[in-house]
């Protein structure tokens, strides 16, 4: 049973993705019998490639994938270099969870309201500093180059990369590396990039590819912050698949395949750049140069990190203020009249969706966690780590654009005859939750010294007893963290919930996004905060529970994690 775990996991992840991909690939060649298209051909592809603006869409998606990943990685590394083993490092650790917990769409919406010409910042500064009585006609949000889109993505991806970078620091002996390099006379930044990054980067590779994939293919953030015409490719695909003219489904399918190609190309470019950088970097590491713009970069990190926190905080504050606003006109810095109406409206409708959100998140995360634990425990017992290819499969759902395979997935569920509903939705969530659970838990699990379980076995306990009595309690803290991440991922799912639930199942996220279509910022604010509350609670619990549980076990606090 345990031995089958890795293959079971691979099947759970690869099966739907493959089926979904097929569901996009086949119609892209003109085959969709339900609409009377039953001959294969290249006409759809010709239509797609001659679509006005398609080049711009492709370029935009490609660029936002590469640029977001590059910037996020650079910032994450800079922050770690600047703050590692300082007092601020504790703050950095603590800031990650809430930043991660805010759903993408809510964060994007908050940022949009923060930086718009009629947004919160402009209101705080007008008219006394800017002289604006009316918002200026400036294109900041949804700019053509996608800068605001990338900024929004970076805001969410930096915490993610920090999270995955923090986990293996102990494993690669970052402290010792830094001390050694500093003792050899290297500056803090140079020491980090020359001695820690080379060991850390290989462990970040797959998460970075996931960042590229997400940034080049996401919809939530792109709809709010991305340029509108031409839009990023994924948004264009969504428009096609939502076009009342059903024949556009064919172009949508081809577009989804193209999206997959764009994402793959962006990752390929990254891999190529990575090779070159590694080669160049070796010479640089061995050059003996002791500094790397120490003061400049140090200052940059000390400015940018608080700036990131501040903009996230101000954005959420602005959203929170909107949620209590009855009247809030430009350039008033705060609402002129307040109300609880929006919260009443949330309260009237939220109880059902809240329950559904919670049970689906618990079921999907619980199942994912069980599978990941089974796989890791199997790995520990056999002493064989999952192969590279198998590991890639775990990341497949993160690497393949959602828009590309979800339609095919619905088709598959229908063909098998699984009725849409909660069970199917929870199963669908597993596809996206499991990779993140694996990502957050696997390093800690593998880092656990095998001597512990050996010792326990020499004391006469069987393998399964050792798992429950020794291994699991010792990785309890990272397991809770993985659980919280899984909950947050599940809670944030929109497309899967809609498509596999046939829209019958309302979660706080589907409610929030349905109402976002109405455009009332105050209501959107209330819902976005409601949507963020659950993951924040999850993270808070994941942080607090071990402290409470292990308050008399100092060895469990800090030793693992």
């Amino acid at each position, binding site marked *: 049973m345990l031995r089958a775990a890795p293959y079971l996991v691979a099947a759970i992840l690869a099966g739907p993705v493959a089926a979904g991909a097929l569901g996009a690939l086949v119609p892209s060649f003109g085959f969709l019998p339900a609409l009377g298209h039953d001959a294969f051909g290249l006409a759809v592809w010709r239509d797609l490639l001659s679509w006005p603006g398609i080049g711009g869409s492709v370029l935009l998606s490609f660029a936002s994938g590469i640029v977001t990943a590059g910037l996020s990685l650079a910032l994450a590394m800079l922050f770690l270099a600047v703050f590692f083993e300082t007092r601020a490092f504790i703050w950095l650790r603590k800031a990650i969870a809430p930043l991660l917990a805010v759903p993408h769409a809510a964060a994007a919406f908050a940022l949009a309201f923060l930086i718009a010409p009629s947004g919160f910042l402009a209101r705080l500064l007008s008219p006394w500093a800017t002289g604006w009585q009316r918002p200026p006609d400036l294109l900041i949000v949804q700019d053509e180059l996608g800068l605001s889109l990338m900024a929004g993505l970076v805001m969410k991806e930096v915490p993610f990369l920090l999270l995955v970078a923090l986990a293996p620091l102990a494993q690669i002996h970052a402290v010792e590396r830094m001390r050694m390099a500093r003792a050899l006379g290297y500056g803090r930044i140079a020491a980090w990039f020359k001695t820690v990054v080379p060991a850390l980067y290989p462990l970040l590779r797959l998460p970075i590819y996931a960042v590229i994939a997400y940034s080049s293919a996401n919809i939530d953030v792109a709809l709010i912050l991305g340029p509108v015409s031409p839009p990023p490719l994924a948004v264009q695909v969504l428009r096609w698949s939502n076009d009342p003219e059903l024949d556009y489904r064919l172009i949508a399918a081809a577009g989804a395949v193209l999206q997959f190609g764009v994402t793959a190309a962006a990752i390929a470019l990254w891999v190529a750049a990575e090779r070159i950088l590694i080669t160049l970097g070796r010479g640089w590491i061995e050059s003996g140069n002791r500094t790397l713009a120490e003061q400049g970069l140090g200052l940059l990190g000390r400015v940018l990190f608080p700036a990131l926190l501040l903009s996230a905080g101000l954005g959420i504050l602005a959203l929170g203020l909107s949620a209590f606003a009855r009247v809030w006109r430009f350039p008033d810095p705060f609402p002129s009249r307040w109300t609880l109406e929006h919260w009443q409206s949330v309260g009237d409708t939220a109880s059902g969706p809240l329950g559904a959100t919670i049970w689906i998140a618990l079921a999907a995360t619980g199942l994912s966690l069980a599978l990941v634990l089974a796989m890791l425990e199997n790995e520990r017992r056999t002493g064989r780590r999952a192969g590279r290819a198998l590991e890639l499969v775990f990341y497949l759902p993160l690497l393949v654009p959602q828009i590309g395979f979800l339609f095919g997935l619905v088709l598959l569920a229908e063909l098998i005859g699984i009725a849409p509903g909660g069970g199917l939705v929870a199963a669908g969530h597993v596809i996206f939750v499991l990779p993140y659970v694996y990502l957050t838990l696997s390093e800690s699990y593998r880092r656990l010294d095998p001597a512990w379980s050996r010792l326990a076995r020499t004391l006469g306990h069987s393998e399964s007893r050792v798992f429950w009595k020794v291994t699991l309690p010792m990785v309890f803290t990272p397991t809770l963290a993985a659980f919280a991440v899984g909950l947050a991922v599940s809670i944030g799912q929109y497309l899967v919930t809609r498509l596999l639930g046939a829209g019958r199942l309302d979660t706080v996220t589907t409610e929030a996004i349905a109402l976002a279509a109405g455009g009332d910022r105050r209501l959107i604010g209330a819902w976005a905060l409601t949507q963020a509350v659950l993951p924040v609670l999850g993270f808070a619990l994941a942080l607090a529970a071990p402290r409470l549980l292990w308050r*008399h076990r*100092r060895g469990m606090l800090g030793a693992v994690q």
Partner: protein
Amino acid sequence: MTGGLVLEGVRIALENRELLTLDKAVAPGEVLTVMGPSGSGKSTLLSFIAGFLTAPFLATGRVLLDGADITHAPPEARHVGLLFQDPMLFPHLSVGGNLLFGMPAGRPVRKTRAAEALARFGLEGFADRDPATLSGGQASRAALLRLLLSEPRAALLDEPFSKLDRHLRADIRSFTFERLREAGLPTILVTHDAEDAEAAGGPVVELAL
């Protein structure tokens, strides 16, 4: 059939390179010291006896304990206790919890016995303590106690004194050997400290690289 721990034609190889061969019997209460430089296969030998040898190591030969062949038994059925460099008290359990975890299930008055044993080892009232708050010497004694209470039939010691402060080392060492001898356990000690070997007072095997 003899009592004690018998290594019969044991050969351990790493891929194709032979690491060690050993044919030895360790009588109850006797300590066999295995010495040798790093990489000579000392710890691998202990892994083999305890039942944890994994690829790429290969082993042949038999391990007999009190006459029974345990070569292929699962580790938990071998009744072979281990002591490491670190005391390795489970950090999620109290000191008492660590002892109880080691004691066989189904015995009467386990808690009382654990408390009495702690007192005998100079750790009176330590049952509810967090292992992280113990001094090095206290932790070592607790680890030894856990091993003894698990009622093993043999003990394997993997450089158990190497991390101890100098002034503690002699005390702990003699304390440990006395207790093992009292319990009549056949013991194998792996070390590269000649003082350890001397204090153990038993036969010594030198492994070459």
